[in-house]
Every structure is written in C-alpha cells, then in structure tokens.
C-alpha cells in the first residue's frame, strides 16, 4: 500500500526586510552576512498574522489543490515553535477554518524547525494503519530572533500544509519511506514565557545540524538502498543558504538537485515550514516520475528524511493553488521600524 501526498499548500506573508536594513541598525557588515548566510531578505508577517493564520492559509491552499471533502480528514496536526497560545491548540483553529471538524483528532507539535515533518510522519502512521482516511500535517511559524542576535537576520514567517492519504489514485507524490535520527542535543531552545530563543552559536552547526542531517539522510538511503544520483531533486532544512548547500555536498548531492527547493535566500528560515517549503517549491516544478530526497532538521535535535516519487496527478493539481514562486513574488519591503511594529517589538502603553 502506498502512502503519500494527496495535496500541498504553502503560504508566505507579503512583507520582506533586507539584510542591509537589519545590518544598518546594528552596525553589522551586510555584505559579509549575505555571503556567509546566503540569505538576502526574509519574510515578515503582517501585524495581524501569526502561526495560526499562516497555517490556515497554507491548509486552505492544500484543500483548494486537493478538491477533497474536508469531512474525510481524520487528523489535523500543526507543528510550530510559535503557536499563538501556550495552551489551546492551533490545530483546532485550522481544522475549523478548513471545515474538517468535528469527526477528527487534532494536536499541536513542537520540535523546533522539524515539527512540520514530525506531523507528516504522524499522519503517515495514522493513514497507513487505516485509523484515518486523510491527515493534514502543517508546519507554520512566525519565528523569533532577539534584536541584534544572529537569528534576527534569518528568523522568518511562512507555512506549508501537506494532505497525507493512501488512495493511490489520489496521490500526487508517493512517500516511499521515512527515517529519523534523534539525540538530546542542546543547540537551541526557548524557555516557557520567554520571548526569544537561545542558541549555542557555532555549536548549532556540527553537533546539531550537520550530524543529524547527514545521519538522517544516510540512514534513509541505506534503508532504501538508494544513492544521491537516484534522485532528481533534494531538499535539506534551510536555516540559511549555506548549511543545506554544505550538507548536500557532503552527502554527494549536486547544486542542480537542491536549487529548485532552495527558497531561503529570498524568504529566510520559515522554521517548521522550512523543509516543507523546499518540498513544496520542488513539487511546484517536478514532473511525474521524478524522485525527491528531503531531510528536515529540528534543534534539540533530530532529523526526518523522506524519499518521495512524484506521480502523474501532480500535473492535475499543481495549478489549483498558488505556487511558492507565485507566493513570494511582488514583496513589500519594509524598514526596521515597521518590522519592529509588525513583530510586536514595540509595546504601546
């Protein structure tokens, strides 16, 4: 029995701030940052957008693409590290907004940047076991970076929803298998009630990102007996442009394989939406029969790797909702003052 992606939908807020503008405020060298991070601008949510509204927009795009009856959805899981409520699920808001309620289960996920793919895996399990017909897995974030912190240059906003199912005629892409690599690694965290996360600086690279991404990717390829050259495309979690490029090279993937899914230079790190955004951008242009290799990473730390094969159905559904490139064209650039206002960094009396 095949399990896979029935439909997908993305959402990216319209506003952008350029690296130069953030660097101007803090007296940093913008050129050095852009070259080092391979990020040139990042998305900024509107004043009235949060992880829930982004999750809803992405899920609605996925529903528009699928054309399925929302009543068939048996589970809605939203992964985020910026859920608007500490207690009260984002997923119930999403489920109500896509009219999937009430005969279904829902819960919120958190695993830094890989909460979205963790939700995909949970839906694969429920769908594969026959417990539910369809499952909606979402990764959405309005991520936070403290003023002047390195994260402020990349912490962005966006989300992607994947409708997971098992009816072969409905699948736009088959997920052949998934594999995870997880350890307790304190590379990044945010304590309850704190507005901004803390990170281990350089520690986040080797022991965090690279160890987990490469082991997760190798683990899945060993399990399936595949090699990098068996895939047409590859997507790796993109906290910046440099990390996924380096991970791809280490593993033996080419620049051509990762380029279609590498959206971080234009929108920044959308956290729980990051790897899924790369998968969505790749699905936007993949042809039937193409194979996609994807590995998400979440600090804390773990990776989820996926091997995906695109089916004929992709051509049918692709244009029923905006593609990632359509979503990110025509941005509105804002200055740091307006960015601070949008992000709630200015407190009114």
């Amino acid at each position, binding site marked *: 029995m095949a399990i896979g992606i029935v439909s997908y939908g993305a959402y990216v807020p*319209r506003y952008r701030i350029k690296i130069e503008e953030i660097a101007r405020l803090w007296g940093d060298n913008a050129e050095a940052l852009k070259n080092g991070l391979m990020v040139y601008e990042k998305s900024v949510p*509107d*004043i*009235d*957008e*949060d992880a*829930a*509204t982004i999750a*809803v*927009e992405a899920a*609605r795009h996925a529903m528009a693409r699928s054309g399925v009856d929302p009543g068939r959805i048996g589970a809605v899981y939203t992964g985020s590290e910026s859920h*608007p*409520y500490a207690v009260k699920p984002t997923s119930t*808001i999403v489920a*109500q*907004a896509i*009219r999937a309620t009430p005969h279904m289960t829902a819960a919120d996920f958190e695993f830094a940047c890989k909460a979205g793919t963790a939700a995909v895996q949970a839906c694969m399990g429920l769908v594969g076991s026959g417990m539910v017909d369809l499952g909606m897995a979402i990764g959405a974030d309005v991520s936070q970076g403290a003023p002047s912190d390195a994260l402020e240059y990349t912490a962005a906003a966006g989300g992607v929803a994947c409708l997971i199912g098992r009816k072969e005629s409905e699948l736009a892409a088959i997920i052949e298998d998934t594999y995870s690599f997880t350890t307790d690694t304190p590379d990044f965290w945010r304590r309850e009630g704190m507005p901004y996360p803390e990170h281990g600086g350089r520690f986040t690279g080797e022991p965090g990102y690279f160890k987990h991404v490469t082991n997760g990717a190798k683990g899945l390829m060993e399990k399936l007996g595949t090699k990098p050259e068996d895939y047409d495309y590859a997507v790796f979690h993109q906290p910046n442009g440099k990390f996924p490029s380096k991970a791809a090279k280490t593993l033996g993937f080419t620049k051509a394989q990762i380029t279609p899914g590498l959206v971080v230079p234009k929108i920044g790190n959308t956290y729980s939406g990051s790897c899924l955004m790369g998968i969505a951008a790749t699905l936007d242009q993949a042809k039937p029969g193409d194979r996609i290799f994807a590995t998400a990473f979440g600090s804390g730390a773990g990776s989820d790797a996926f091997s995906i094969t695109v089916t004929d159905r992709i051509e049918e559904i692709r244009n029923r909702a905006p593609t990632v490139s359509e979503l990110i064209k025509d941005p*509105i650039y804002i200055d740091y003052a307006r960015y601070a*206002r949008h992000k*709630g960094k*200015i407190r*009114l009396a």
Partner: protein
Amino acid sequence: MSSVPRFWRNLGSRYNLEGTRCKECGEHFYPPRNVCVNCRREGEIEPYTFTGTGEIVTYTLIHTAAEGFENQSPYTLAIIQLDEGPRLTSQVVGEPEKMHIGMRVRPVFRKLGEDGERGMIYYGTKFVPADA
C-alpha cells in the same frame, strides 16, 4: 469584542463566511438570517457559504484607532459588497494608498483582535485586494 461565548457562537460566519440564502426568492444573507425578509413565512432558508469575493463600496482610513487596534493604525475599514449581494464591514489589509471604491477584494484569514495579553485571540475573515 470582549465576549468569548458571543465570538464562539459566530465562529462559522467569521471563519468561513457562512450565511444563509432564501430558496424562494434567491436573496443571500450575511450574517445569516433565519427568516427571509422578502418572503417571510413563505420563504425557505438554507445555509450558504459565501465565496468571499466582492468589491469595496466605500471605505475610510482609521487614524484614531479603537482600543486594542492602536498598533494597526492607520488601517482601512470598508463596506464590502459580496458578489452574492450582502454587504458587510471589514478591515481591508494592504497599503492604504492603494484602496479605492470599486476595488475587487478576496478573503483572508487573520487575527481580528485579542483580549489583551491574557485573553482570547479572535480570528476570522478580513479582505485583501483581489490581485494581492
């Protein structure tokens, strides 16, 4: 907007523009009506979900914001005529200088407001220019 039950009762209308329609005369209602204003007891009301596309009938730019909206000013408040007929008042998200009477709009899901830092967050439908 400080009543949790009042908001919860209208979730369907706020999230998905759920209204009603009279099968007899074809008139659409938003917010939903249980009795047709034209046909009275001869009318037959059924649920109807609006597509959400429509146009700006008139609008105003709010500079002196109501409590809880201070962070959003200036913002556009408009009377929107949905394509099926009913008119409603809503915020239109976007650059104020681009707003104009007759502008086509489409719905988006946004935060409508919140009861301070401890209270509930109210979500629902706002509008954006149709080409945005």
